[in-house]
């Protein structure tokens, strides 16, 4: 708590170990702005798992890959609206959440059922059950849990990619995992 107040008083965030403009993603964004498509590919490989996880936590799996592509195309078209190059991770996460919300405006939620009816083997069914349980958690927990358990990212990586503080990611992971275990019926 005291350390949090200290950082607040100094106007810094704990994730800001290095200035935003010297981060590798900031340099990549600079290159993309000049029309470098290879830099865009690197940026995609760096942030696509994070965007995929955020969308997977909300949207039926069949639609996830298409929406990931839409997120990056939209980001590419609107790159001039990004003010701070180093904040591209948080910016992409916001676009991903908005695209997921747009999806539900466009289509009805009954498509989720069609996804489940296509399952054939038992292990997939169990995986879908776990994923459905994660999706039933609050937004802050389900996003972090998907990034950790599905995408295989560590806590610090989640914080770095999404722009959240490591403390909040750690809290969300711990509480989300506790909630998930309760819902899955695993003894704590």
């Amino acid at each position, binding site marked *: 708590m005291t350390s949090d107040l200290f950082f607040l008083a100094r106007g810094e965030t704990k994730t800001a170990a290095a200035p935003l403009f010297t981060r590798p993603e900031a340099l990549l964004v600079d290159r993309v*702005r000049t*029309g470098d*498509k290879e830099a*865009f*590919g690197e940026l*995609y*490989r760096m942030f*696509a*798992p994070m965007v*995929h*996880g955020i969308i*997977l936590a909300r949207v039926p*799996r069949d639609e996830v*890959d298409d929406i*990931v*592509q839409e997120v*990056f*195309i939209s980001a*590419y*078209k609107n790159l*001039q609206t990004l003010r701070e190059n180093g904040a591209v991770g948080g910016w992409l996460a916001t676009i991903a959440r908005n695209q997921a919300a747009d999806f539900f405006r466009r289509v009805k939620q009954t498509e989720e059922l069609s996804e489940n009816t296509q399952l054939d083997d038992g*292990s*997939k069914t*169990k*995986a879908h059950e*776990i*994923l459905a349980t994660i999706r039933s958690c609050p937004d802050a927990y389900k996003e972090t849990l998907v990034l*950790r*358990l*599905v*995408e*295989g990212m*560590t*806590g*610090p990586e989640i914080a770095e990619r999404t722009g959240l503080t490591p403390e909040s990611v*750690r809290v969300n*992971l*711990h509480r989300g*995992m*506790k909630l998930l*275990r309760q819902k899955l019926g*695993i003894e*704590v």
Partner: protein
Amino acid sequence: MNDEYLWNKTGTDAEIEGLENELKAFRFSADQPPGLPARIEVLPEKRTFNFFKLGFAVAFAAAVVVAMTLIWLRTPVNHPEKRSEFVKNNSENVAVPISPGPFSTPIMDPPMPKPKVINFKPPTTNATRAVKITAKKEEKLTPEEKHAYDQLMTALAITSNELKLVKDKINGRDVERTAAPDRQK
């Protein structure tokens, strides 16, 4: 539950590892970025049109026009109906001015007169002033006035003498003055 494994994958936790293995099937796998437009178009920053400012300006202009129209109509000589009544009532005595309208040049007040420049003269001495006053009085006074003036001056002289005596008595010089003429006599 091993919190350290959950946080940064140090150590082991069979339960979390089992969940990871189950959910691995959903992991992101596509490495190819989406196809981009052939031509890179760097869009200029959009200028947002501020509807609020425009609306405020229009409303303000409309309010000014309405206010000026109301003021113009409330003047009886400008209102079409009231004007006829006003002309009827005052046609014998009053010449009705025709107003040029609300947007014409307003009638200005006459300019203020310039302040007069006062030439300051230094005060004259008592002697010159007395000469001037007596000269004026001698020129203008009638005989009756001159008689009254002489009487007044005599009374003033007597009064001043009496006052001088009182002053001398207060200062203790009355004995010397009164005694001195007696000794001379």
